[in-house]
Every structure is written in structure tokens, then in C-alpha cells.
């Protein structure tokens, strides 16, 4: 499905702020893999997702998605294959536009947009059904502006938008980190439900080690721009938080866990 081969990225080359964000990363995902990604701050987790999405160009290597080499496609062209949810709930939706307008924009991801009307009557019915399932009381507020919603509601809506047109790969970049624990759990449950139901392939960055162990069929740990641990299936489901901490110290020989990770 996704095949990342020898991808490297260095920011601010030749300056005092030079930072090797990704060092020769290779990663191979099977269809329907749901991979959680953990690692300390600056480990390269978000950078890896941004490289796949095409936010910045990579320095070297190849990113291949379902047989298509997307390494050098611009961000908007890769969007055809990707569903994305960001950490900041404000980033995934257009605040001054209606809920149904946001959904209609998402439904047309990757399609050429022409002079047809931006939203159809059948669509509205479909959106109503989908929103009813979210159970956030949004189904009767189709024409409300998204800016009136709470962070959790916006993030749930973004998730729905990212998967409205089935993506080949779903990229979740700490999408529950900005939410309160209760809302975060709700959005996370919804995430799992949508991924399982639609048989999606997904990459999810998280700071929460328990979530990383509980969710998905595979876990990778990153440190200093490298993948230092990759575990799947049975072995993954038997993991404990303490195993992850130990694993990290073995692999890197350094301090891994910051307060945020230990507390969560």
C-alpha cells in the first residue's frame, strides 16, 4: 500500500539551525494496516506525515502509494489519495462556512471542480445521516457555521470529512491532543470505528502510549529522525507502557519519556 524508501529531510541546510528531521526512513504498509506512531518531541513523527502529504519537498528517497510514485507531486495533487486530520481543530475546517458546505468540499477531494452547483440535495440527506451517527447533535445544524462548533465537534467533523471520500491512506497527526480527555476518547473511538468499518489504511501519531498500544495492529517508535522500533500483531497487543520505555532506552541509550508521555 504505502512504501516509503530511504526518505531523508533536513531543514535549514547549511545554517546554525540545521536539523536532520528524517534520516533515511523506510517504511512499508500493508493494506488495512492501522499504525500508531510514538516518539519524543522532534523525533520526526509529524515531519514524516507532512512528507507523505507533500507539505514540504523531501531531499531524497521515494514515497510510493498504491503503485503511484507521489514523491514529487504537489500537496494538492496528493490530496486525491489522502485523508488528513490535524492536531489543531481549527485547521481542518473552514470556520466561516456552513457544516454542509465543509462536507461538500470534502466530498469533492481529488475531483476536478467545475461550474456545477457546490452541493446537491441528495448530498444533504447523506450528510444528515452521517452526522446523526456522530451523535453530537449536528444533524439538525447542517447550515450552521462551523466556527460555532466546539473543538471536539470540529475534530469529529474533520474526521468525517477526511474519510467521506475513501482515502487510500488516512493521516492522523495527534488529532486528539488538543481536546479534553473525555472528548479525546470520543473522537478516538470514532476514529477506530471509521477505520475498521471502511477498511482504511491509517497512520496515527499520538503522545499517549496507552492509546498507541490499544489501537491499531502495528506500532512504530521514532527517535531523532529514525524508526527505532516496529512491532505488530500479537507481539504488539502484549506490550505494556513499561516495555516501550525500556525499548526506547535500549535502542537510543538516552532519555525518552517526557512528562507528558508518562502522565498520559
Amino acid at each position, binding site marked *: 500500500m504505502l512504501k516509503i524508501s530511504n526518505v531523508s529531510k533536513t531543514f535549514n541546510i547549511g545554517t546554525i539551525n540545521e536539523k536532520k528531521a528524517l534520516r533515511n526512513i523506510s517504511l512499508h504498509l500493508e493494506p488495512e494496516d492501522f499504525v500508531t506512531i510514538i516518539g519524543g518531541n522532534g523525533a520526526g513523527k509529524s515531519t514524516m506525515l507532512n512528507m507523505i502529504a507533500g507539505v514540504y519537498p523531501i531531499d531524497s528517497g521515494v514515497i510510493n502509494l498504491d503503485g503511484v510514485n507521489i514523491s514529487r507531486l504537489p500537496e*494538492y495533487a496528493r490530496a486525491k489519495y489522502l485523508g488528513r486530520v490535524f492536531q489543531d481543530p481549527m485547521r481542518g475546517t473552514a470556520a466561516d462556512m456552513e457544516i454542509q458546505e465543509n462536507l461538500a*468540499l470534502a466530498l469533492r477531494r481529488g475531483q476536478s471542480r467545475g461550474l456545477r452547483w457546490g452541493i446537491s440535495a441528495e448530498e444533504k440527506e447523506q450528510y444528515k445521516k452521517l452526522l446523526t451517527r456522530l451523535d453530537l447533535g449536528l444533524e439538525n445544524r447542517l447550515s450552521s457555521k462551523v466556527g460555532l462548533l466546539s473543538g471536539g465537534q470540529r475534530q469529529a467533523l474533520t474526521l468525517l470529512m477526511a474519510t467521506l471520500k475513501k482515502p487510500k491512506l488516512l493521516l492522523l497527526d495527534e488529532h486528539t491532543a488538543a481536546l479534553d480527555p473525555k472528548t479525546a476518547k470520543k473522537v478516538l473511538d470514532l476514529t477506530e470505528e471509521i477505520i475498521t468499518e471502511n477498511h482504511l489504511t491509517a497512520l496515527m501519531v499520538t503522545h499517549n502510549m496507552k492509546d498507541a498500544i490499544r489501537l491499531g495492529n502495528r506500532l512504530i517508535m521514532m527517535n531523532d529522525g529514525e524508526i527505532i522500533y516496529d512491532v505488530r500483531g500479537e507481539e504488539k497487543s502484549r506490550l505494556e507502557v513499561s516495555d516501550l520505555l525500556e525499548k526506547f532506552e535500549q535502542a537510543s541509550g538516552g532519555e525518552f519519556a517526557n512528562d507528558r508521555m508518562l502522565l498520559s
Partner: protein
Amino acid sequence: MNIGGILLALQGAASQGILWGVLVLGVYITYKILDIADLTVDGSFALGGCVCATLVVTHGMNPVLALVIATLAGMIAGAVTGLLHTAFDIPAILAGILTQIALWSINLRIMGKSNIPLLKTETIFSGFVEATGLKSSQASGLIGLIIAVVIIIALYWFFGTEIGSALRATGNNEDMIRALGVNTKMTKMIALMLSNGLVGLSGGLVCQSQKYADIGMGTGAIVIGLAAIVIGDVLMGRFRSFGSRLASAIVGSVVYFLIRAVVLQLGMDANDMKLLSAIIVALALCIPVSLNKYRAKRAYSEGGEKNA
């Protein structure tokens, strides 16, 4: 001062406001929808006027066709700003200033001198005056109104389409709409071309209505456009639908020119009008910010909730 004179002045001002309203619709697209201040406007308004005057007077072109070409010229000016901004990452304001300054020289080249009178040539208004027997200010008001309504309907339709929605989303949340597969460089180009096309058309209309084009006719046009948007917001802000917000641009423009006519009648120097426009826009931008700060200060109490 006689009442008849004032009424006549107000009628003229209203017509002028409608024709300038086409420019305000253009500014609305960039300032309100795309969320950038596009300073190309001063140049592209004069460009529309200069192109129109030159074609009608020097080349004897049909005045309607001249308006079409003035519109296209405005679109090209918008495309230049768009290219500087999207392909070369120049900040939108600076890109607009560069195009605006360049257009000053280009406009002089087009006209070959600093102004062209349209005294004896036919305009889209002159034929109408002959046919109906209306006064020329009434004729330009009426024709302007028809054009404005057609443009509002067209814009309402366009911003409801898939491309139009993508364009609104570009102004609202660029990251999001790019992640949904829209080339935001393209949507910005379209918006800037559409906007400056309308501005060019407005320049052509004003030129035909006032019967001259002048190299300085666009100076301060952006501030007039912003002032009209601000006035329209104040008067019609409670109507939330997109159509009425477009209409508020025209209403704002008419009210702006009515205010202008009144203060001129009251004896204000015409040269002070730009100062007044700048003050209106500055106040409109300052008041909400100051009000919020004031409310935040008032809301503070040392004793916590129970003392509030």
C-alpha cells in the same frame, strides 16, 4: 443654496455610487472573500478608464466593446499581481503595489497623454439618453443599476459552484482546502482576475459616464472601495445571506458618494475627501478592536465571580 441644486447633486452622486459599486464588488472579492488587501485596484481602475477612453476616442470603437476590453485589461492586471503573489511568493500587498505602480506608466503609454475627454463621442449612456429623454445622470444610474444587478446575480451563482466554494474556502482556511485537493494558487489567481476585471469594468463605466479618462482617476480607489464595504456592513450587516452582502457593497458605495456630495455641498474642499475616506476606513477598523479591549477591561474584577 437651493433645494433643486442639492437634489440634482444627490442624483448624480447616487449614479456615480452605482458605477463605482462595480469596483466595490471587485474589492469585496479580494478583501472579504479572499482575505487579502489587493492594492492593484488603484491601477486597474485607471487602466479600465484609460483603455476605454483610448478605444472609443482614438479608435472609434463601439462603447460596449470598449467596456469588454477594459474588463479584460483589468483581468490581465489582476493576473500579473496573482503571478507575483502565487508563483513568486511575494506578499499580496506588495505584489499589488508593484502592479499598481507599473500601471501608472502603462496607462500613460496607452493614452499617450495624461487625460482624454470624450466630449463628442458616443457612450453607452448617450444613446440611452437620446432614446428615453432621461437626464444623463438618471441614465447612467439606471444602466449602472442593471449592470450591477446582473453582476451580483452572476457572482452569487459563481460563488455557489464547486470552484466558487473552493475559492471561498481558500480565503477562509487555505491549509484545509489544499488538503482537500484544491490548488490554492489557482483559486487565488481566479479571484484576483475576477476582482480586477470588475474594477476595470467600473473604470470604463465611470470614464464613459463622466466623459473623460484621467491618469489620476484611480488614485485612492482602494480606500473608496474599502470605505464603501465598511458602510455597507454597518447598514446591512444584519442581513447574513451572501446575496444581500453583495448588494450591501453597492448600497455602501451609493451612500459613500451621497455623503461625499453632501459634505461637498456644505463647502468642504474636494481635495479633503480622501482624508475623510481614510478616516472612515480607519475608524471602522479601529472601533471593533477598541470595543473588545474596553469590554475585556470592564469585565475584569479582582474579587472573582461573586463580585462581578
